[in-house]
């Protein structure tokens, strides 16, 4: 751990910052800038500042209402949305808007901080890797005698055994604690033992995982698609947008409620999926049970009423026959409304169901039909309430309102970045668990033979100077004593 590296005097831990020659004499301006940049990006203070700023932006994002996706791109929708939140934010509304506070997670600020985090993490990881690698694979075994006097934890004992016997005993004790031992014998035996030497790699993995996750999010944003409000009425078959050759049929939608409390229990859409006309999947989509096919997923999202109707042109040629989801609500009433194209007529139709018993214009069993010109100006051609089962001509098109059904609202998505997200999540969790829960513990020893046939054993550790490490070290020393029958020297 860095603290250990910085404060201990254990050799072999040469900090890489110190190992870089202090700028070749001929270093030009560019080198200076690059050096400075590298220094900044690998500085922990910079990392602290970045994560704190990211936290502050998130705080703002949690407190201030965020505009729904797509609203800010559409000038009209944006104006409407801003007007809606103005009473809440008063004079700050325009300031917030100018500073992209209403869309903070897509704001320049957030992207900037995210980009800097990625750069900094990448630099930091590159910077740390060699040292971490060296510590794990090429530890210094022979540390010199002075180390055993200055190490945060150290102990000395005299044993009435030969040096070889002492070594064997030490190895056994360490082996039981899952330490591996390396020995270098030059008359004096130099000992290095460690446990969890791969722990610190968890840190590198965990940090890089963050980059992997952001990459996944960017890939998903750039190459994936989200259709959060795909509506389809019972009995209808529609092509799936942004997916070539796929179409989906809704056979039935069922919503059920708890009879006692009226709380919703289940929403279920029975669908059949076709690819180029042949059935490829059949599934009942529920809230926690999406349909997945070939990278595309269908989720249960919402539902509502639909009407089954047919429309025929003047000459009797059919224009439409099927279900129309009434998925919108009118601005000026509680009626649910839906729309259908009337191909070849240059017109579109809007239909509205009754809003209930109090509705005097559209009664239960009736449908309000409005025909508009499909020319951008959208002039109303004719407006008429029609009765169920009675063919009625509105704006030159004959409508027959057959019956009411339901529609389901599905969220459809394809996210090619998702595998990276899940891979990154796994690495993030695994990496940080590894480094935090399996800290690298290191220990040095020295066994010198004595003229009397016995030996002197020195042990020292540079673990974090905390209670846990202290207790572990004391227990280890006690075990060694017990095995070696050694009284303490000091």
């Amino acid at each position: 751990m860095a603290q250990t590296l910085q404060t201990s005097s254990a050799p072999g831990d040469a900090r890489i910052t110190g190992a870089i020659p202090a700028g070749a004499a001929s270093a030009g301006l560019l080198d200076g800038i690059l050096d400075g940049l590298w220094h900044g990006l690998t500085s922990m203070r910079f990392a602290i500042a970045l994560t704190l700023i990211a936290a502050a932006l998130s705080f703002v994002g949690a407190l201030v209402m965020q505009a729904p996706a797509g609203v800010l791109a559409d000038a009209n929708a944006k104006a409407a949305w801003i007007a809606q939140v103005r009473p809440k934010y008063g004079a700050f509304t325009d300031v917030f808007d100018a500073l992209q506070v209403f869309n903070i997670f897509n704001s320049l600020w957030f992207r900037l901080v995210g980009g800097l985090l990625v750069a900094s993490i990448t630099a930091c990881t590159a910077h740390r890797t060699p040292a971490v690698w060296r510590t794990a694979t090429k530890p210094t075994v022979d540390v010199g005698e002075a180390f055993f006097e200055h190490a945060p934890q150290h102990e000395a004992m005299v044993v009435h055994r030969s040096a070889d016997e002492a070594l064997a005993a030490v190895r056994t004790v360490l082996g039981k604690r899952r330490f591996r031992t390396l020995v270098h014998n030059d008359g004096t035996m130099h000992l290095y033992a460690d446990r969890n030497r791969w722990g610190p790699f968890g840190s590198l993995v965990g940090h890089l995982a963050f980059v992997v996750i952001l990459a996944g999010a960017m890939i998903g944003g750039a190459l994936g698609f989200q259709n959060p409000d795909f509506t389809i009425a019972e009995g209808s078959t529609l092509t799936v947008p942004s997916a070539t050759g796929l179409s989906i049929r809704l056979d039935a939608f069922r919503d059920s409620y708890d009879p006692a409390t009226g709380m919703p229990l289940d929403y279920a859409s029975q669908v059949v999926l076709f690819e180029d006309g042949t059935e490829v999947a059949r599934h009942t989509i529920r809230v926690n049970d999406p349909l997945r096919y070939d990278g595309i997923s269908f989720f249960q999202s919402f539902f509502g009423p639909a009407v089954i109707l047919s429309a025929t042109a003047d000459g009797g040629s059919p224009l439409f026959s099927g279900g129309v989801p009434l998925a919108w609500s009118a601005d000026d009433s509680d009626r649910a409304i839906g729309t259908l194209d009337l191909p070849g007529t240059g017109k579109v139709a809007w239909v509205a169901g009754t809003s209930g018993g109090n509705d005097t214009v559209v009664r239960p069993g009736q449908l309000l039909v409005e025909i508009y010109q499909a020319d951008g100006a959208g002039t109303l051609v004719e407006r008429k309430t029609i009765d169920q089962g009675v063919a009625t001509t509105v704006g030159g098109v004959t409508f027959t309102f057959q019956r009411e059904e339901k529609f389901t609202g599905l969220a459809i998505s394809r996210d090619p970045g998702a595998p990276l997200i899940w891979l990154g999540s796994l690495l993030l969790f695994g990496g940080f668990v590894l480094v935090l829960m399996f800290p690298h513990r290191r220990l040095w020893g020295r066994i010198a033979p004595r003229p009397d046939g016995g030996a002197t054993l020195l042990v020292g550790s540079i673990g974090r100077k905390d209670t846990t490490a202290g207790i572990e070290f004391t227990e280890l020393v006690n075990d060694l004593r017990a095995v070696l029958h050694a009284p303490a020297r000091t």
Partner: protein
Amino acid sequence: MFKMSEYTFVAAALCLGLASLIYLAYAVSGLRAGMLRTAGGPGGASSTVTFASGPYTSELGRYGTIIGWLAMVTLTVSLIFRTIATGHGPFANMYEFSIAFAWGILVAYYWFERRYSQRILAVVAMPVALGLMLYAVTIPSTIEPLVPALQNNLLLTIHVAVAIVAYGSFTVGFGAALLYLVQPEQGRWGLPKPKILEEIGYRAIVVGFPFLTLTVILGAVWAEVAWGKYWSWDPKETASLLTWLIYATYLHARVVRGWRAKRAAWLLMLGFAATLFTYFGNLYFGGLHSYAGLAQ
């Protein structure tokens, strides 16, 4: 089963209240002794490592621990009964979640008490747990069927259970930071030495941070399965990300000169504030998590 869970809940709340009082008396007794000594001898800053200096201090501490354990056990039993009665883990609404949170604090606290014998932390941890229990009392405890989005027993259970461990640990970290910040560097009033508090705070985050990471990840997995989007910047998600970032900052601060001591402790305070913000956030901001069982 439901009745049993209610009775044991009340028993646990009473035990917890009693334990809080005893721990408080323990603290007062120890502090008084500590202050007397500090004021008295030339020894100035006392050198006691553990906080047990008055005539009744250690006795009180022992009773506090016994009653506190009793609270933990009865609460465990209560949660088990409730699980049997509802057929899902006790994590589905604010009522259940508050009790589970209190339980998490007790478990985390006693783990640390066993390991570090610093009972004084209870003065912070117990009242927080008690507060959550009392808060739970204000919420109807009736069992209602799960709304469709919550009907994923496995993910619901793991996601929240993991969150509970994280939150419990963060509460202990908060207690350590608080006691750290009320003393000068060389210690005061016979409170645990700043160094040991620093270590407890760190250990708490070493456990809590990976668990929070897992909570967020499982939340994303669930969001993907239920709503089709692993991340929607829903306020609750955002708040948990904020909490996560603060604790990550803390882990960095500990190895930077100038950030190690006081500022790191302040980050723990901030992190706990963010934890509470995440937890109670539902009440304020609604969003996708807003179905969590309060009358709407």
